[in-house]
């Protein structure tokens, strides 16, 4: 589903979203009032420029619209792969974006991520995964690396990885695996304004700020080790 039909579906009361060089900006109307829309389109490769434009939007919202909910529309193939980007410390600009989202959360903005296309590695870490809760369209592609590339790098036969992926959510691409492991709240088969309003209401009613992914991953059976290890460290 392309961006604008999706936004028209999610926000029947209206929105003014626009896209400039792959970055989304805008405001939408919902039952709980205005919400800010920001994110990327066309599987953007996150560069310094994109990270800094997203960060600037977040800082402006914290200044100008205290407490307004932020909706992150996630579609990224990962970070930009170029020497010029690394020369200027691309990890630093992505960290800056993550810190801006963190600031917004601490200042009382709830943050909701929706994966509309792809969600990959560094681009996903610095923005979408920083949201309080992340949802995904059923068609979303979430991964670190596809299984063929993974087979090449790890020198484990591709067929073996495919077979193991059927029983383990730990390494194979797929939004469903991230749901089982606690990082995605729910997959939306048919996106609707009701689903979005419900997700926003739940988020506002819960205790935003807390990272609940360890517990969710354990409850859903996708991450059996992590929560127990954190508890063991606290008890050691």
């Amino acid at each position, binding site marked *: 589903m392309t961006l604008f039909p999706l936004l028209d579906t999610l926000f029947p009361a209206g929105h003014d979203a626009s896209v400039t060089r792959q970055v989304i900006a805008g405001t939408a109307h919902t039952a709980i009032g205005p919400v800010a829309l920001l994110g990327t389109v066309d599987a953007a490769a996150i560069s*310094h420029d994109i990270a*800094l434009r997203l*960060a600037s939007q977040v*800082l402006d919202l914290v200044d100008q619209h205290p407490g307004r909910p932020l909706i992150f529309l996630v579609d990224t193939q990962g*970070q930009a*792969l*170029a*020497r*010029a980007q*690394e*020369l*200027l*410390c*691309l*990890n630093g*600009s*992505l*960290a*800056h974006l*993550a*810190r801006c989202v*963190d*600031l917004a959360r*601490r*200042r009382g903005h709830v943050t909701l991520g929706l994966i509309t296309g792809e969600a990959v*590695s*560094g681009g*996903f*870490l610095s923005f979408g*995964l*920083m949201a309080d809760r992340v949802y995904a369209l059923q068609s979303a592609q979430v*991964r*670190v690396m596809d299984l063929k590339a*993974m087979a090449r790098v*790890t020198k484990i036969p591709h067929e*073996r990885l495919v077979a*193991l992926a059927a029983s*383990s959510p*730990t*390494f*194979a691409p797929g939004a469903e695996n991230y749901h089982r*492991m*606690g*990082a995605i709240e729910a997959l939306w088969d048919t996106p609707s304004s009701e689903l979005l309003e419900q997700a926003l209401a739940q988020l506002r009613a819960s205790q935003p700020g807390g*990272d609940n*992914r*360890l517990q969710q*991953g354990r409850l859903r059976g996708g*991450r*059996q*080790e*992590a*929560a127990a*290890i*954190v*508890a*063991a*460290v*606290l008890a*050691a």
Partner: protein
Amino acid sequence: MNLPQPSPPSRGPSFYEATARQRVNRLLDAQSFAEFLPPQSAHSSPHLALLDLPGALDDGVVIGSGTLGGKPVQIIAQEGQFLGGAVGEMHGAKIVGLLQRAIRDKPLAVLFLVDSGGVRLHEANAGLIALSEIMRAVLDTRAAGIPVFALIGGMCGAFGGMGIVSRLCSAILMSEQGRLALSGPEVIETVAGVEEFDSRDRALVWRVTGGKHRYLMGDCVALVEDDVEDFRQTIITLLAQWQENPPEPHALRAEQERLTQRCQQFSGMRDGLEVWAALGVPNPQQIPLLERDALVTLRQGLSL
């Protein structure tokens, strides 16, 4: 920020070559380290076992508490010699647990000895989610008033999600041998070609990602010798004067301005040599040859 010079170099054991445990034991006050979840009380990663790969009882990361110059600290040290220090489910959970514990126990600081290529591909999803949890936990620790210092000087550097985590820390200390970036040169070469980044050109790799370049650019706060004792003395000096500030809009605005300006100033450049020349370094080609002290003096003379 420029730090006072630590005592004259008395080359001790190489940080680069040491194991995680050796680094921890030599960095902290003698006999002060107490490990949490030591190997004898742990089990190795079931995800690696599923792939018939040998595990490690500490899953490639050492965590615990100790003292530094008599002050209580907590510490995380990744083992670059085990699967490139990469983050899997258990490895990541140990780090998150240590950071949560730091918020509760209130040590003077957390020292994070980063030596990692990022996500452990054998546990890719678990690793990515764990890195996200580590990012949040580092920011929570800092917001609780406890500084987190990244120490980078191991053979795997700080790449991928660990490069992001490092830049979320209060400050970074690097040796010349340390490397800090997002994508590794091999990844860029594989995807974009050898003309874009020749990963076998070691001098180029260090001019783009190495400790001296990051120090000249202000991405790390101190450049230290490849010597555990020098890391120790520098962190003691830094800690004595450190004030951990809560996250504030004005500080992030200033950082936004700094990052935006430098993207404009160095736009289109692809080699440290070009950047150093633009910074006003008189003989940029001499930078890789300079001793640490000479480089620190040179940077103090630049208007950064």
